[in-house]
C-alpha cells in the first residue's frame, strides 16, 4: 500500500479504464495512417455507446450490444466518409461537426433509456489462474474486451508492418498522388479505413455504457474521444506506443480517483489536466513542420485527394 492506494488494484483498474480510449485510438490510428484526419472520434464513440446500449437492452444480449455499438459508430463515420471523400469537404470542419452531431443525436436517442440497467457481461473464466496472488488480479480477472483491446493493438501492428494491405494503407497516407498513379483506389481505401475507425470508436463507446459505467447518461464519453485523438499523436502513429499511451492516460484517470479517495495532498485537478497538457505539448511539436517529420506523421494527413487529369 502506498498512501492508501493498492497498486494491484490500481493496475487492474487502469487496464479496464483504458479500454475505451485504446479501442478508439487504434481505430483512429488506422484512419490517420491512411491520411485522413477524423476529429469526430468523440461523436462516433458516443453514438456507439447509445446504439450499443439500446441494442443490448432491447435484445438482452451484451454481445449483440457490442455489435450494435460498432455499427452505430461505423454508420456515423460513413457520413464523414461521404462528406470528405465524395464531396471533398474539409476534414477538420467535418470531424468537428461529426462530434457535435453525434453528441446531439445520442442524447435524442437515449431519452427513453436513462436509468435503465443493461444486461451485464461476465469476466472471462480463467479458473485457477485468476486465483494467483497479484498476477491473477491484474491479468486474469477481466471481461473479454480488455483482452480484445490488446489483441487489436497486436493485430493492427502486424497488419501495418507485415501485410500488403498495411503497406498499401500506409502508401495512401504517405503520398496519395503516387498511390493513384500506381493504380490504387485512394478513396475506396480511405473510406474503408474511416469505417474501421468508426466501428472501433463505436466499440469503445459501447464498452463505456455497457461495462464501465454501466448505464446511459448524456455525454457519457466525457472527452474520451479527444484523449483517443491525443494518444494517436502521442504515440507517433505506432500501435505499441498507443497501448502505452492509453495505459498512461487511463492510469492517470484512475490514479486521480484513487488519490481523491485517499485524500492525498495533490489537487486532483492537476492530474485531470495532465492528459490534455501532454496533448497540447505534442500538438505544439507537431505543428512545426520539422517536428512533424520527426514524429513521422503520414505526409498526406488531413489532405483531400483530387484525381488529377
Amino acid at each position, binding site marked *: 500500500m502506498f498512501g492508501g492506494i493498492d497498486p494491484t488494484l490500481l493496475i487492474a483498474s487502469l487496464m479496464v479504464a483504458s479500454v475505451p480510449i485504446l479501442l478508439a485510438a487504434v481505430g483512429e490510428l488506422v484512419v490517420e495512417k491512411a491520411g485522413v484526419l477524423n476529429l469526430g472520434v468523440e461523436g462516433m464513440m458516443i453514438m456507439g455507446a447509445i446504439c450499443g446500449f439500446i441494442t443490448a437492452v432491447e435484445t438482452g444480449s451484451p454481445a449483440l450490444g457490442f455489435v450494435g455499438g460498432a455499427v452505430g459508430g461505423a454508420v456515423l463515420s460513413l457520413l464523414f466518409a461521404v462528406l470528405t471523400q465524395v464531396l471533398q469537404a474539409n476534414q477538420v470542419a467535418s470531424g468537428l461537426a461529426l462530434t457535435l452531431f453525434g453528441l446531439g443525436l445520442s442524447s435524442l436517442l437515449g431519452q427513453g433509456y436513462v436509468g435503465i440497467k443493461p444486461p451485464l457481461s461476465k469476466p472471462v473464466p480463467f479458473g485457477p489462474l485468476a486465483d494467483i496472488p497479484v498476477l491473477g488480479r491484474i491479468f486474469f480477472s477481466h471481461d473479454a474486451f480488455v483482452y480484445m483491446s490488446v489483441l487489436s493493438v497486436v493485430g493492427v501492428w502486424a497488419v501495418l508492418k507485415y501485410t500488403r494491405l498495411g503497406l498499401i494503407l*500506409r502508401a495512401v497516407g504517405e503520398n496519395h498522388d*503516387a498511390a493513384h*498513379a*500506381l*493504380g490504387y483506389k485512394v478513396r475506396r481505401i480511405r473510406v474503408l479505413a474511416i469505417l474501421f475507425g468508426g466501428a472501433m470508436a463505436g466499440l469503445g463507446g459501447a464498452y463505456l455504457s455497457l461495462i464501465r459505467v454501466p448505464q446511459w447518461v448524456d455525454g457519457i464519453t466525457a472527452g474520451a474521444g479527444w484523449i483517443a485523438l491525443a494518444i494517436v499523436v502521442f504515440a507517433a502513429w505506432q500501435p505499441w506506443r498507443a497501448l502505452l499511451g492509453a495505459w498512461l492516460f487511463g492510469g492517470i484517470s484512475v490514479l486521480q480517483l484513487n488519490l481523491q479517495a485517499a485524500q492525498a495532498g495533490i489537487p486532483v485537478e492537476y492530474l485531470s489536466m495532465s492528459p490534455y497538457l501532454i496533448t497540447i505539448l505534442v500538438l505544439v511539436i507537431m505543428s512545426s513542420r520539422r517536428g*512533424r517529420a520527426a514524429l513521422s506523421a*503520414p505526409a498526406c494527413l488531413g489532405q483531400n485527394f483530387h484525381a488529377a*487529369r
Partner: protein
Amino acid sequence: MNTSAAELLRIEGVTKAYPGVVANSDVSFTIREGEVHALLGENGAGKSTLVKMIYGLVKPDSGAMRLRGVAYAPAEPRAARAAGVAMVFQHFSLFEALNVAENVALGMENPPPMRELAARIRAVSEEYGLPLDPARQVGDLSAGERQRVEIIRCLLQSPKLLIMDEPTSVLTPQEVEILFQTLRQLKAEGTSILYISHKLEEIRALCDEATVLRRGKVVATCTPRDRTAREMAEMMVGATLTPPERRATQKGAVALGVSDLSVASPIPFGTSLKGVSFTVAKGEVLGIAGVAGNGQDELLLALSGELTSAPDKVRIDSRPVGDLGPVERRRAGLVAAPEERLGHAAAPNMSLTENALLSGAVRQGLVRRGFIDWAATERFATSIIRAFDVRTPGPQVAARALSGGNLQKFVVGRELLQEPSVIVINQPTWGVDAAAAAAIRQAILDRAAAGAAVVVISQDLDELLEIADSFAALNAGQLTRPRPVEGLTIDEIGLMMGGAHGMEVAHHAG
C-alpha cells in the same frame, strides 16, 4: 535499326477531350519491338495524356490500341502492367517515408516476400549498373537514386514496353550517360522504350524514331539521327525560334553578397545550406544549377528573407540584411520569385490585382497610411499584364484561372517591374511553353542590362548557359565557386553538380 521488326504497340486514332481542351486528337503511331521511340512536344502538347492512356490511368474517348496485334484497352495500371507495360514517372511516384523495397513492392502485382524481393532488387540493380540498397528510406535518396528505384521497379516485371516521362530532367550529365547505357542494354535485350522529352540532343543520341505532337495532334514523324535539333524544335513549336538577344553589359559594383551562409532546412527531407558564399555584381546574371533537392528551395528562402540568418551573411549593396524579413529586403531592393507558382508566388484564389499588391506594396507605394490604393494597384497589375503579354481577360481574374505559363509570366513580371536592384528567381521557365520561356529570359536579360544583379536558380542547363554570365552549382547544400560561363564544358558542369552520385556503368551484356 531493323525497320522490319514486328510491331509491339499500334495506336490508332486515339482522341481524348477534357472540358474546354482537346488533349489528344486522332493520334496514331507505331512502336516496334526493340525500338526506342521518342514522343516530342512542348508542355501541354498532349504527351502526358497520351502515355497515361497507354498506362491505363486515363481512358480514351475514341480510337484503339493494339499490343502485339491484340486489342489493348487497359482499364487500370494493373492491367497495363499485366500486359507488359511499365512506366517511370516524370514526378516520381515514390513514397518518401517508406524504404526502397516497400516502394518497389507497391508497384508490383504479386511481390515476393520482402527478404526475397530485397535480394532480387540487389541482383537487378547490379546487373544494370544502378546500385541501390533495398533497406534505405527513399526520403534520404538523391533524385538520381530515386529514379533508379522507379526503373528497378519496372525492370523487375520484365516489361515489353518501358515508358519514360522526362527521365533526365533531374539528372546530372554523367547520370544521363549512365541511364542511356542502361536503356541501350534494355533495347539490346528486346525491350521497347517510349521516351518522352523535349531535350532534343538526347533524343538524337538515343532514339530510333520520333513522333512529334503539337496541340494534341501528330504533326510530324522523323528519324532523329537524320535531323538537326533545330529542325525538330521547329516541328515542335511550329514556328521559327529566335534565341534571346544578349547585350554586352558592363559589370558594376557588387550588389548582392553572401558569405558563409548556413541555414537549416524547414522542409521535411530538405537539404540544409552549408557555407554558401558568392557575390553578384550590378548587371551580372549568376546561374545556379543543381539537381532538384540539393538546396535550391532553401537558397531562395534564405535570399528572399523567408529564412533569416546573422545580419552580415547576406548583404544588399554592402548593407547587412541577413536578419531582415522579406518586406524589409524588398525595401532594400531585393525581389524574389519562388518556383512554386500557386501557393508560394501567388495566392490561388485572389485576383491578379490582389496578387500584384502582395509583393508590390512596398516598392510601388500601393499602401498609404494603412489604406490600399486600389486604383494604383490595378494600374500596376494591368501594366504587368501588358508588358509581359499575360493572356487573361483582365486583372480581376483569380490567379488559379491562369495557365501555368501565363501565371509564370505574371509573377516574374510582377517582380521585374518593381525596378529592383537584386533579383532572385527559382526555375523561371518551369512548365512554360517555348515562346513564353523566351520572353521571360529576354526580360531577365533586359533587367540585367539595366543594371540589376540577377540570381537565376534553374535545373535547365541550356537555359543557364543561355542567359548566365557566371555559373555555380548546388550539391548537397554546398555551392561551388562561381565560374565564368564562357569556356565551361558540359563535363565540368556535370562534375560541379556532383558527378554521377556513385553510379557505375552497366557491366552486363546478355
